[in-house]
């Protein structure tokens, strides 16, 4: 037990938690925007892959890191546009289209990677974002190292979450977006375009998912691997439900999840960890996500028109 305590009070552990949570925050907020407007975006897993790949590729080809983030966001928005076109005006099944987008984005990344690097066995590295300690704040014991000695992309993740929360609940645009996910006919009656709002939400949300993916290559691992997203996108879909479609709660969910993930990695190295097969620890995050869904199932306030296509003039 003392090992567990030692882990939980170490600054390095909490720094890892915030680092692991960052890509999840980007992608979860992106998914949340889509779902608040009434569109389930199962393209998330593939869009994270394309973001990880294009962001890495841009930097590998000599672009600055922030340009890489921009390229990733653009690529994500492009796939978001495809998803939005098929699911919003055409009203096609959001499940099928989303999975199709994931398959397409994933295979496009693999295809393009092999075109650029036909015979490379060890993936080339790039120079990633460096930690950017915030003056004074980073000197606070434990908290300073955990929160204020991260890379710029991590600060951006939290900034985006706060901004999205503010827009959603404090501005007319946010009200319109939330209403589109609840009662699209009422939005249309106000003279606003449901199609426009939904497409915008999916495109922007997909852009954020891709930045989440780019975090993996540009801030965490500094090279691109085929399996690197590894279900993180699906976990973010669960985190949106866990967060009851609220940005603040979703960020807390991401941190909780990241804490669990960081803990299982560290527990593997303790004497208790040596007793169990390591696969049990790796399974834990996925079980946690399922458990979170079960716990929230009774309480969640699902947007009323989530997954309901809107066809103007139809009753």
């Amino acid at each position, binding site marked *: 037990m003392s090992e567990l305590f030692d882990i939980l009070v170490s600054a390095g552990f909490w720094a890892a938690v915030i680092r692991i949570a960052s890509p999840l925050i980007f992608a979860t907020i992106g998914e949340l925007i889509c779902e608040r407007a009434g569109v389930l975006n199962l393209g998330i897993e593939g869009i994270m892959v394309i973001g990880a790949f294009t962001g890495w590729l841009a930097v590998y080809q000599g672009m600055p890191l922030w340009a890489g983030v921009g390229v990733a966001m653009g690529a994500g928005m492009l796939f978001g546009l495809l998803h939005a076109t098929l699911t919003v005006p055409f009203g096609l099944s959001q*499940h099928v289209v989303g999975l199709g987008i994931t398959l397409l984005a994933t295979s496009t990344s693999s295809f393009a990677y092999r*075109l650029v690097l*036909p015979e490379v066995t060890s993936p080339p590295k790039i120079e990633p974002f460096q930690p950017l300690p915030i003056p004074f704040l980073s000197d606070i014991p434990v908290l300073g190292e955990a929160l204020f000695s991260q890379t710029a992309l991590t600060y951006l993740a939290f900034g985006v979450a706060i901004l999205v929360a503010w827009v959603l609940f404090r501005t007319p645009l946010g009200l319109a977006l939330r209403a589109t996910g609840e009662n699209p006919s009422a939005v249309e009656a106000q003279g606003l375009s449901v199609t426009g709002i939904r497409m915008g939400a999916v495109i922007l949300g997909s852009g954020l998912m891709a930045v989440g993916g780019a975090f993996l290559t540009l801030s965490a691992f500094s090279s691109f691997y085929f399996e690197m997203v590894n279900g993180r996108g699906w976990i973010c879909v669960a985190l949106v439900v866990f967060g009851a479609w609220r940005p603040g709660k979703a960020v807390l969910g991401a941190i909780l999840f990241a804490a669990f993930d960081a803990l299982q990695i560290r527990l593997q190295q303790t004497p208790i960890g040596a007793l169990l097969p390591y696969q049990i620890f790796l*399974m834990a995050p996925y079980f946690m996500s399922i458990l979170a869904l079960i716990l929230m199932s009774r309480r969640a306030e699902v947007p009323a028109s989530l997954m309901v296509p809107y*066809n103007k003039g139809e009753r």
Partner: protein
Amino acid sequence: MRLEPIANPSLARRIGFPAAALGATIVTASLLAMIAGADPFKILGLIVKGAAGSKFAALETLNRATPLIFTGLAIAVAFRAKLWNIGAEAQLYAGAIVAVLLGTGAIGSPFVLPVTAIAAMLVGALVLLGPVLLKTRLGVDEVVTTLLLNFIMLLFVSYLLEGPLKDPMGMGWPKSTALVKEARLPRIVDGLRLHWGFGLALIAACIVWVIQKRTTLGFEMRAVGANQGAARFAGMPVNTVLIQSALLSGGLAALAGWSEVAGLKGHLSLDLSPGFGYSGIIVAMLAMLNALGVIIAALFVAGIFVGSDSMSRAADVPTYIADMLLALSLLFMVLAVLLARFRVVRG
């Protein structure tokens, strides 16, 4: 824009749009080949030749189609009832595990094959039963739970291969001990590399077709999928129908794993399935969820995979072109099927 249903879509419309989807896929394939710096006609020719140009190629395609027919059927059954089973990969591995657990000497012949097949189906059904009960009892969305189970199952297989099921003669390579001869599916024709899993897949497709078209359960599945509220109002036991669909779907997906182990590989390894569970979604959608259509769609998908592998060895185009083409054909096809039945109107 607005969509307006067409009362009686013409035959030209119903065939034209899916044909255009296929055409669009071929055009994209040519463009991708050009991006890769190759001659598109040569590449398309190599894919077709690699998939069906020789007896060896054709048999390879049939073998590859076998698990795809099973997973395609599994998805078709589930999606018809709007049960989003994205966990066919996990159910497939469940079936494969059972094939190894019972097929390495635990049961004596001559019943070992039917016993392992039925046990595999039961365990596969159980793997999907959990998410479905969570859906019907607690309203937990099955998409995410079935997806996450895929990752859990792969880790479980990895544990089994390094622990209880490890082949002591595997030289550190993570694979299971081999099945005994009685637990292996025989070849359909002596000397031809095609096992009975393919025959069973065809039989399964016919059975599923009969269930879909000729039984009360099939009717109820369609009704629940078309409009759950209306089905409930009409007095149908919606939850029971969903659970029955899940059991059938999980069982079919498990047979894919069972037949890969018993028919093709003879042992379990972590690369048993290159995503057959996910490709099954493409197969089922291309078949428009029709069980007999699944056979044709599975042959098409298998042909693209086998043909692209062979093309990739001959020309410098990455084999991932196959996955791109199939994902695109899925998106083109769902759009084509919609446009066959709806007219796009301004305003």
